[in-house]
């Protein structure tokens, strides 16, 4: 039974959102409209995270980025508040 690619993608997107929310203080409140239209905050934080980890900065949720996000790590955010 192959996994539903749509579901898998959805899971990854949730994971990324939670990760960026936890470690890159992804701000969603008050910017729902913008986020829905263009995903700008998510893309921007993804770029920030990819740059921090020395990944190729694509702004897209590629496999390398997901792999890093799944690794055990420190709970302290990577960017200061």
């Amino acid at each position, binding site marked *: 039974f192959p996994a539903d690619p749509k579901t898998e993608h959805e899971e990854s997107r949730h994971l990324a959102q939670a990760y960026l929310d*936890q470690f890159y203080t992804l701000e969603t409140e008050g910017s729902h409209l913008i986020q829905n239209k263009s995903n700008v905050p998510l893309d921007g934080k993804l770029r920030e995270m990819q740059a*921090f980890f020395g990944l190729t900065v694509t702004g897209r949720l590629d496999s390398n980025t997901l792999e890093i996000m799944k*690794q*055990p790590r*420190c*709970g*302290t*955010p*990577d960017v*200061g508040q």
Partner: protein
Amino acid sequence: YGYTLPGWRKHRITYRILNYTPDMENSDVEEAIQKALELWSKVAPLTFTRISKGNADIMVAFRTRVHGKCPRQFDGPLGVLGHAFPPGPGIGGDTHFDEDENWTKDSSGFNLFLVAAHEFGHSLGLSHSNDPSALMFPNYAFIDPSKSPLSQDDIKGIQAIYGSSSKVPAKPKRPTIPQACDPNLTFDAVTTFRREVVFFKDRHLWRIYYEVSEVEFELISSFWPSLPDDIQAAYENNRDETLIFKDANFWKINSYAILPGYPKSIYDLGFPRHTKKIDAALFNRITRKTYFFVEDKYWRYDEINQSMEKGYPRRIARLFPGIGLPVDAAFQYKRFFYFFSGTKQFEFNPVTRNITRVLKANSWFQCQKTLNSSPYNSFSQEKNSNSKSVQVISRKSFILLIYNITYLLTEIYR
């Protein structure tokens, strides 16, 4: 690296362990926490004191599912392992470990020492580093805990906040290099070595050639990599072998090769068990006996029978009156024995049993001050005068022959 100033405004920081994980022995937890803090105190002027009551600067705890509302929740097994707050009052500095992880003191689970060391970096004001080799890189990687997990990036980071520690060992002292013409030069051992004389000192040696007015200075390891430094005695026997002594061991060298099966124990040569080291050794080419000097006594070893002679040890002063003690080094050159004691060298005539000259220990090197009294130079002078007259050579050889015969007869009689 990244950091937050000003860090702690003090250098004495307290910590308290609020609870323990059931995954490990309490003592192992305490050791991991203490070692993790020591890692930082070694490179920055910080001291950590453990308290068991009250409010410590760094409160250490194992927790599950905490930080729920904050964007740093402990998320069950795997995922987030630990969290720490930057320096400050209240929760500032506090460090939490996710109890849902499997904490270990080795690599079978998550190594508490490594995670604690990382978290304490935050407690002291460091943020994450994007250098994957740094301890402050945010993702967990097991590193052999016997090696310091701190990278240069981590050290630079913590020192940017607190400065460098006076406890950080300074650059290792460069080993001192002995100077051939130092008037205070002493030797560890001296021996002939084929057509050379070799002077040992610490990690180094000087070698002089009989026919060449050159002094070579080398590391002992350049010639014999497996020989130790600071050797204590050496001599060359009549079988083209050189024996090197340190403590209760000796090595046998043939040319540049250390013979297999060495080091051996000096007790194999016949020394008693209470002898712990040899000060000096001298091989007499005429009698083929070797003298071993230990404190104020000497032994005599028969190289032909390969055995220590009976009736020894005897007092050095009895056979070699007047030479300085202890004997640091000794060797035979032509018909004389040369004894080294501190910065002095005693030229000894074994036939007449008296000291013929007292020299500086380094008189064999071409130092300007000792140039005229150097036996090395007397050798050169002798060599130069050789061309003057065949008669002189014959007369000298005849005298030398008479000396040798007399000496041999004396030794046999003795």
